[in-house]
Structure formats: C-alpha cells, structure tokens
C-alpha cells in the first residue's frame, strides 16, 4: 500500500475538541528525506494535525502510519521513541531547569554525546548552558526547543510555527538551520507555518489548510506561482482579483 520511500502518511484524520471539529479529513504524506510544509491561517487546524500525529490527541477517524507502522492512538512517549520529534508552538521549555538540563531531557537514553551536535548548531546554547531556560530570549528558547528535538536523534521533526514572533533575521537563521538539519542529519521535516514566504523557500512540497481541510497541495514551486497563494499567503496583490479566494469562487476543492 505504501511506497517504500514514504516516511509518514496521514490518512483522512478527523480530530475534535469536545464537540468542536478542528480537523476534518486531512491527508498528507512526508517522503523520506523531504521537507514538507503545511500552510494555513490562524485556526486552520495546523497545530491540531501535529498534535494528532504526535499522539497528544486521538483522532475520531483516520490513520497515521510511520515507516509503514500504524501509530494511530499510541502513547506520545512511544511515538517519540519511534523517531518523531515535535517542536511545539510557542517555545515550550522547562523554565526553571537549565538549558543543558532541558537538552538532557530530550535525549531518550541520556546520550550526552548528542549535546556536542546540538551545540554545534546553536553555539549560543552552549554559552548559556547553565542559565535557567526561562531567562533565555524568545529566539534562544526556540533554538532550545529545536535542540531538544535534535537530542532525540529523530527520523522526522515536526515544527509548529518556529518563526512565530521572531525578527526577520532570526527567521532567516532558523530556516537555514532547518535546511541544514534536513541534509546533515538526514532528518525529514514537517514544517507548519503561517509565514508562507519562509516555508515555501525551505520546503519542497506544501499543503494548504483551511478550516480543517486541505484545500490545495502541490510542489512549493507551483504553490509559489499560484495566484491564490500569492495573494492570500504571500501578500502580493494582483489587480482585479481581490476578495474571495479563487479556489473558493470556483469551488475546485469539492
């Protein structure tokens, strides 16, 4: 059923917050070694998709496969052990633990040699290794969250809006790091973003999510060229086509 090069495959998942449906039938695929992005406005359901893959939420319907194995509804710590790292939205760190303690918690079997790899990507973390993570700046906390994911030696890292609230310079830095991690550590990447400009540069394939549904998917090249994406996600206006999204007017998704 699955091609051998498919690392992660999400089939038609539906996830609810109580009675509220947040994701209604999302399917996506991450190939071995690829960088795949999921774009969408606030509230589109991007975070919920990641939480469902990570086992933090249970899908009412649908399945998640990782390396051909069905991981739907498995405990989150088991999913991490299978090789999926999750860098959650909003730089969730352990504020009263030191930077290095935060990193050590990422390592599954306390492999401290991994620290050198992380410090090579983020020298600033080594400088502040004794400092409580709560005292780090926003950008440094984001680096710490990424470093903590790297400690797990994962096969796939899922990023949830890593650029949120960072300066353009830092956004650029983070996007470079993501590319480097992808090639140097041979880690596949699922990148959730609102910052379409950055995400479309970094990724090879993209999905566009709206109100819990995938409304568009294509290579990032094609997505960047699409007038809808240009207008609504890259903020480029074209004369005459303002207003409703074109795929909505044409209802191409139904």
């Amino acid at each position, binding site marked *: 059923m699955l091609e051998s090069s498919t690392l992660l495959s999400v089939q038609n998942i539906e996830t609810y917050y109580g009675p509220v449906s947040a994701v209604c039938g999302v399917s996506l695929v991450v190939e071995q070694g690829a960088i795949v992005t999921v774009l969408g406005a606030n509230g589109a359901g991007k975070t919920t998709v990641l939480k469902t893959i990570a086992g933090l939420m249970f899908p009412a319907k649908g399945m998640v496969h990782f390396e051909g194995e069905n991981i739907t509804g498995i405990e989150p710590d088991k999913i991490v052990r299978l090789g999926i790292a999750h860098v*959650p939205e909003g730089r969730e760190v*352990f504020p009263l*633990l030191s930077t290095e303690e935060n990193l050590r918690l990422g390592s599954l079997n306390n492999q401290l040699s991994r620290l050198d790899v992380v410090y090579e990507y983020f020298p600033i973390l080594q400088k502040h290794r004794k400092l409580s993570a709560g005292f780090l700046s926003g950008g440094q906390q984001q680096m710490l969250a990424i470093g903590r994911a790297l400690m797990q030696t994962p096969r796939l890292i899922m990023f949830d809006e890593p650029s949120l609230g960072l300066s353009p310079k830092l956004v650029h830095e983070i996007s470079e790091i993501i590319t480097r991690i992808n090639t140097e550590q041979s880690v596949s990447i699922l990148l959730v973003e609102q910052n379409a400009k950055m995400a479309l540069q970094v990724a090879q394939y993209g999905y566009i999510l709206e109100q819990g549904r995938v409304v568009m998917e294509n290579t990032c090249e094609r997505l960047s060229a699409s007038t809808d994406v240009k207008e609504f996600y890259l903020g480029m206006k074209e004369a005459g086509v303002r207003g409703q999204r074109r795929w909505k007017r044409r209802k191409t998704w139904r």
Partner: protein
Amino acid sequence: MDTFIQLFLSGISAGCVYGLVAMGFVLIYKSTEVVNFSQGDLVMLGAFFAVTFSQWLNGNYWLAVVFTVMAMACLGYGVERILFRRLMGEPPFSVLMVTIGLGFVLRAVAGMIWGHDPQSMSTPYSDARLAWGDFLLPVRDLVVIFGTLILSVILFIFFKSSRIGLTMQAVSQNQFAAYCVGIPVKRVLALTWALSATIAGVAGILLVPIKSAYPQLGLLLGIKAFAAAIVGGFGSLPGALMGGLLIGVLEEMTKFYIDPVLEFGVSEFSAYILLLVILLIRPQGLITSMQRKKV
C-alpha cells in the same frame, strides 16, 4: 534561656513533621495542580504500618522502617494508578473532593483494621534522653530533626542529579512540553505520588514514638501542614519545610508563653493566625516559586 532553647527544639521537631507533610502537598500540587487533602492520613497509615511491621518483625526497628517506606511507595503508586489516573483531565476541584473522600476512607479502614486506641511501637531510642549541661533533650525529638534533615538532603540530591528527579521537575514545570519530549508523563506522575506517600510514611515513622498511631492522627496534622505549605509559598519543597518549621516553633512558643497568660488555648490556632498574617502582608507566601523552586 534553657527553657527557650528546649521549647525551640521541640518546636523545630514538631515543625519538621509539618514540613514533611507540607512537602507532600507541594509535590503533588506542582505536578497535578491538585491539593491532596489525604496527605495527613497517609502519615497516619505510615505510622500504623511502622507499628505493625515492627510487631511482625519482633521489634526490629530498622527493618520495619525499610518495609514501611516500601509499602508507602507502593501505596502511593497504586493510588495514582487506580484512582487518580482515571481522573486526569477532570477539573481540579473534583479531584480535590476525591482526595478528601480518600482521607475519610483511609481513616475508616484504619479504624477497622487497627481499632481506635493509640498504638505505639518500641524504638531503639524511645525513652532515651540526652542530658547536656542543664537541659534534657528527648532523643525522639532529635531523631525527628535528623531524620528530616537526612530526607531533605536525599531529596535535594534526587531532584538535582537523578534522571527521574529531573523528569519529575520537567513534568511539574510544563506538562505539555514533557509529553512533546517523550517523557512518559503518566508513569512519572505515579512515581511522584509514590514519592509523596513515601515522605508521608517517613513522617509517620518519626511521629509514632511521640504521638502513637491512631486513625485521627493525620487530620489536624494535615490542616496545619496545609497552612505551612501556604506560608512557604506552595511552590517549593524548601519553602514548605520552612513554613512547617515556622508553625512548629510558633505553636510551641505560644503554648508556653501566651496560653497561660490568656488562660486560653491560643496555640491551637496560632498556625492559622500566622497564615492569615502572611496572606495579608505577603500573599505569595514567604518564598515565591519564581525565585526558587525545587519541583
């Protein structure tokens, strides 16, 4: 002056027990955002376990201590597995009511098993007194103080350097991040309950020679220790211990210096007066968790 020092020491000794119970409160609260109102009754169980194991083991004190500690750890773990894991995600208030109910059940069960008469156990130091210059020190008070000191040092090292201690802190600081990093949060919570019950067990062991074991032993203890935890800021184990010591010393001093003057038992509720005063002048408690926090 001698009286003062003697009062101070027995205040510290009582305060150590309050402090241990308060640590249990804080430990569970920081990890689960629930105040475990059965913490005092766990101390009572620890006391009864110590008495019973000591009888079974023909008065071998140290072996009884080891068995009690192990039994309490298992009990804490089991209570989380069987009861509180099912309540994960429920509003903290509902879970809090369950802890109150658990306290009632524990007292009733203890009454059925051991009866309502106080039971004591022999220890190697039960009636020993240390004469030092003019004053006599009851050794059992010193044992409480040293026992608490040793346990605190062990806990400090545990949280500072052990992997489990680190994950327990992580779970208490940011449960969501703990899930994301792949920490088995539920198992860590069960271990936190085990640790909290173990501390209660140690408090029970230390308390038996002084107060004996009886089903209502933990009731007042729990309430005063709760006050101690709040005085200490409800955010750190050192804070909880300090709150306990403060209340212990205050009680002992008012009992001796103020009660006779007023011909009225102010000492019985001096803990709550201190609590009110602290809440009025420093609502965040003496030690705030943002500055210092261990778990």
